[in-house]
């Protein structure tokens, strides 16, 4: 894998986060820890109305509001690293959504709408874990159609709903007057869709990091049959299978981020591919980490239970596994993804989809393995 990725960098693709972004992620991790760490999500669940007041000053302190992910480069990478740090602590806040808020501050943030149109009645109403973190939210569909939606008040406490609120789309102003937003999306809109898919996957990645870290510690400490569980190969192999999944998601997350940053023609497809891989990995990682924690892993006394419960919104919204797979297969059709091994950025897949008919990855600079 490394050698192949190395070859791909000859086309100017560098998927590693910059040192600055990585350092920023570490700073955020420490700042969240100093502010309470695992206690943050528990406090927010106890007193949901206080969650914004609990988290926002903290984000202010580390300069999160100054990041503009749309500016690309270091800022986008720093935003990704920040989301990953938030995932580690299951930070009870819609950070990825808030980081993508429009520059004019007209809404609290950006939420991907699963339907095909931005307007009323064109698909399932958008929903996200945004309760209490803002009223009006920008929305964008996978086709790049923009809209605005208002968060409904919560019917259930966060114990069950994990702060997920449904959003009521507002009628959208179009060039032909007020309609339902059925016009084709713009390139900016599509870039926003890719961004709105990719950043939450970085949050989920942070949750996978944490679930595995907690489980590694647990199987090393938990003694049964006179030795740590970690000494049983049956236990080791389960954990290693989960780790392999996590590493795969990490690589894809970096690639999809690069794709957004490069304005890649396939950025939305790359983002969907990342989401698909991340959701499959999450299923396996949480199944294994719960199994190895035993019954205790389902109880409030273990951090894993909190991470697992608060991973649910990001795994279900805006698209769950089968819906993600459905969108991805429909969009890539028989052309496949360009992936990291294509020729110049995005040429092969995008061209194939445009009707050139060549198989993905057969670009002129295809690298031998």
């Amino acid at each position: 894998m490394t050698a192949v990725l190395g070859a791909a960098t000859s086309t100017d693709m560098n998927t590693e986060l910059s040192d600055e972004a990585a350092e920023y992620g570490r700073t955020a991790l420490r700042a969240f820890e100093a502010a309470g760490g695992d206690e943050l999500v528990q406090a927010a669940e106890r007193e949901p109305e206080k969650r914004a007041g609990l988290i926002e000053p903290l984000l202010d302190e580390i300069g999160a509001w100054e990041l503009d992910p749309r500016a690309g480069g270091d800022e986008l990478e720093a935003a990704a690293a920040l989301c990953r740090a938030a995932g580690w602590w299951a930070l009870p806040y819609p950070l990825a959504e808030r980081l993508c808020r429009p520059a004019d501050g007209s809404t609290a943030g950006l939420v991907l709408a699963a339907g095909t149109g931005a307007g009323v009645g064109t698909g399932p109403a958008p929903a996200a874990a945004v309760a209490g973190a803002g009223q009006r939210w920008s929305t964008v569909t996978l086709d790049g159609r923009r809209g605005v939606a208002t968060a409904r008040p919560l019917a259930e406490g966060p114990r069950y709903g994990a702060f997920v609120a449904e959003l009521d789309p507002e009628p959208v102003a179009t060039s032909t007057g007020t309609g339902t937003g059925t016009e084709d999306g713009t390139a900016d809109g599509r870039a926003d869709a890719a961004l709105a898919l990719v950043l939450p996957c970085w949050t989920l990645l942070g949750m996978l990091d944490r679930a595995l870290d907690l489980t590694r510690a647990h199987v090393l400490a938990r003694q049964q049959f006179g030795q740590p569980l970690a000494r049983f190969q049956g236990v080791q192999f389960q954990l290693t299978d989960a780790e392999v999944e996590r590493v795969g998601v990490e690589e894809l997350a970096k690639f999809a981020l690069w794709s957004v940053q490069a304005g890649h023609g396939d950025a939305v497809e790359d983002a969907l591919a990342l989401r698909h891989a991340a959701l499959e990995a999450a299923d396996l990682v949480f199944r294994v980490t719960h199994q190895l924690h035993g019954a205790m892993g389902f109880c409030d006394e273990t951090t894993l239970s909190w991470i697992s419960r608060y991973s649910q919104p990001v795994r279900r919204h805006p698209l769950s596994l089968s819906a993600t797979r459905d969108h991805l297969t429909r969009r890539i059709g028989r052309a496949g993804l360009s992936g990291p091994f294509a020729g110049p950025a995005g040429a092969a897949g995008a061209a194939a989809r445009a009707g050139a008919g060549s198989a993905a990855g057969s670009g002129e600079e295809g690298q031998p393995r």
Partner: protein
Amino acid sequence: MNTSTEDLAEFRAEVRRWCREHVPADWRRAQTVAGDAEFVAFQQAWFQELRTGGYAVPHWPAEWGGGMPAAQQVVLYQELAAHDAPRLVLGFVSIHHAASTLLAAGTDEQRARHLPAILDGEIWVQGFSEPEAGSDLAGLRTTARREGDGFVVDGQKLWASGAAHADWCLLLARTDPAAPKRRGISYFLMDMRSPGLDVRPVRNAAGESHFCEIFLNGVVIPAENLVGPVNQGWQVAQATLSAERGMTMLELAERLGNAGFRWLVEACRGPAPGGGRLVDDPRVQDRLAELETEIAGLRALCLGLVERHEAGTAGPADASVVKLYYSELLQRTMDFAVEVAGLPAHTELRKPASSGWESGAWVLDFIGSWEWTIPGGTSEIQRTIIGERGLGLPREPVVPA
């Protein structure tokens, strides 16, 4: 003991008639909002209803009120599931684990005292696991010290499902701390009203607290409540654990086949998000066919196990095969059901009490299915048993630290 095709058809007609007359029409709605007291009252009433019909303990020996041939039991469980009858949740440990322990290892006095009482509604809980003794059950630390005519028990039990409602507890405690760990354990029947006993619920990720901690401080158990010889409780426990792994599965397998899977197919007949019906999607058809094949395999395995158990020819790993097969299949089936049900299923936050592991509240069923690979011997333990006792493979080497 007639189990010819005609007799079975007649029996089926009889059970159907009974179900139509006795299964409460709207129990699901009532049990979805039921508090603890209503749940207990409903379970007790339903158990008596089944008892009157002769269906409460079909797997017990005839002299104690059972004696139904395995082939008829299959029919009974099929029809109960197909008529969406409530499950015996509260009395599960009583009619399976407690009864099989008493039948296999109890004294005549113990059987005479408790088996009729169980039929009258006595509720039992299993007090096996401890904070430091999960998979390594034989590592348990709760002690029972001989004192006069009885034993004095100190320690802590964990994951005791339903302990809050229990009258009696199947308790494992260490009576000889000096002996090798499996040879120093004794098996007791403990009255849950004994002084020195404290039960605390543990809340789980699904928001319920059906499993509990039991704290034991100087609890006195009379010597007559010892099951089997002192220090041979491990052997007695094997009998009850194997009951949980094997015999209880017949009902669960028929539930999965005749209730859970049927509802899943119905759900697939509903409208798909993009138009049409889910069941018309070839991928959905593939998955359903795959699951149905596996469920048919499970049902055959369960029936085979019960028949071999009755004939005394069951192999040492047969029950483990069934438990492993059921628990992982249940998880896969519920996982698919969650996909089929889509996002609206996530807003269904209450599952009816008294329902099976598959209730149609698919997300909660899915979360619930996760626990199946942990209690009663984790999947890792089942695989070890199948490897070592079933296939005769060597034990995993212990690497010196």
